[in-house]
């Protein structure tokens, strides 16, 4: 479907744009990830407002995380999270075995070092969504084998 590709193209271009403007000296290099993350944050805030418009009020934190893993992920990344784990003390690990934004990159080790910039926006997306639902958090991502990745959500009490 064409509309599925649009988000990926735009996302790729956003990354290109941010890194190009860093090269041209308009911005510090280390700030690129932060900038992408902040863009994601604002988008996440808006998206969650739209997605939760017709859902019942959430019972608790776990209920919110389930919503992120199912409905939110399906709407943005066209699939559900494959595995959600929690220690019941505010840490959640969301595992996606075939993450949509990494799927187009070669599955080997070749582009592994570029993976963080393709995940920053999504981390912000999750953090923004959670923050609008009243859950303050820190979201980090890690990749060990290419299209699979893990998002770690640390809830700030």
């Amino acid at each position: 479907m064409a509309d599925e590709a649009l988000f990926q193209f735009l996302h790729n271009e956003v990354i290109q744009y941010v890194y190009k403007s860093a090269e041209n000296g308009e911005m510090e290099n280390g700030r690129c990830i932060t900038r992408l993350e902040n863009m994601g944050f604002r988008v996440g805030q808006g998206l969650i407002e739209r997605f939760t418009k017709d859902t019942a009020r959430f019972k608790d934190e776990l209920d919110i995380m389930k919503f992120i893993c199912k409905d939110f992920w399906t709407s943005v990344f066209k699939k559900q999270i494959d595995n959600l784990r929690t220690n019941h003390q505010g840490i959640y690990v969301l595992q996606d075995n075939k993450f949509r934004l990494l799927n187009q990159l070669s599955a080997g080790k070749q582009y592994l070092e570029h993976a963080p910039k393709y995940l920053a926006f999504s981390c912000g997306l999750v953090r923004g969504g959670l923050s609008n639902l009243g859950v303050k958090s820190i979201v980090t991502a890690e990749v060990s084998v290419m299209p699979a990745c893990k998002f770690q959500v640390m809830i700030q009490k």
Partner: protein
Amino acid sequence: MTCLCFLCVSRDYDELSSIMAVCIAVIAKENYPLYIRSVPTQNELKFHYTVHTSLDVVEEKISSVGKALADQRELYLGLLYPTEDYKVYGYVTNSKVKFVIVVDSSNTSLRDNEIRSMFRKLHNSFTDVMCNPFYIPGDPIQSKAFDSMVSAMMVQAC
């Protein structure tokens, strides 16, 4: 609830006959107003009081959700409290933004269903505001589209 006795003020009913809501407010999750508008003919401060006092009832209703069963998990909270002149209705989004609509008690044509659809419209419009990239979340709402939608709710097209 004692402060409600301020609100009982006599009014001219004739000029209000075509009005649906007399006051519409959007309250941020930290309980400060994002948007509040009332019919211009009346004392605006009075409505600020009414909306302000209603927030306690909203808080009570949301916090009782844990104890009550699943049927209480709807976003629409229903009638918060009636006063002599007004009925105050509430709605809370999942992001804990509150909508409060004050209608005239004399307006008997407004049923629960109509109120519900007013909140729905309000929520849709608020979502559009939130998704506007030029809007900074937490700022007062200045959107013209939102404004005109509220105006339409306050004066019924006859």
